[in-house]
């Protein structure tokens, strides 16, 4: 069962409370999203580290239940 956009956004904000999260449903099928996450927690981190923070927030769903989530991350 693919994840709903609101669940993705909620999980990210639970782990990164000060993040701004925007989710776009790329294909309208509830399975291909792009998440843009802006958070001070990313300051000074490499893109890999920033994305790992988001993947950790999604608690291991990335690559499994969540097949395709394109990520754009940056500090404000």
């Amino acid at each position, binding site marked *: 069962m693919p994840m709903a956009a609101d669940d993705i956004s909620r999980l990210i904000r639970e782990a990164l409370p000060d993040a701004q999260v925007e989710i776009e449903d790329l294909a309208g099928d509830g399975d291909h999203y792009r998440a843009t996450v802006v958070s001070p927690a990313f300051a000074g981190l490499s*893109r*890999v580290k920033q*994305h*790992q923070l988001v*993947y950790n927030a999604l608690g*291991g769903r*990335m*690559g*499994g239940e969540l097949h*395709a989530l*394109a*990520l*754009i991350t940056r500090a404000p």
Partner: protein
Amino acid sequence: MTDTTTLESIRNTVESHDVVLFMKGTPLFPQCGFSSLVSRVLQHMGVEYHSVNVLEDMDVREGIKVYSDWPTIPQLYVKGEFIGGCDIVKEMFETGELKALLDDKGIEAA
């Protein structure tokens, strides 16, 4: 569970080639859009790279995710360092950071 021999063999592969792409399928026959995109970026830049088809070995397919603490395939490595998956490689290519990184590491790239 990924055993140490798999992790060792991954380390050996990553450290014995300048550029390594763990992907689903092969550069000629990619089996996933994300893998295909990264291999085409490298091809477009004329970068020589060693590709590993993770679909041929489940241990490597799971082991690479443990090795880099990264949940998806493809995964690009340059001089032993994990650079990123499809999103990051695409973003770095578009901003010119990928070319700068390859130049910095002394790797031929157009």
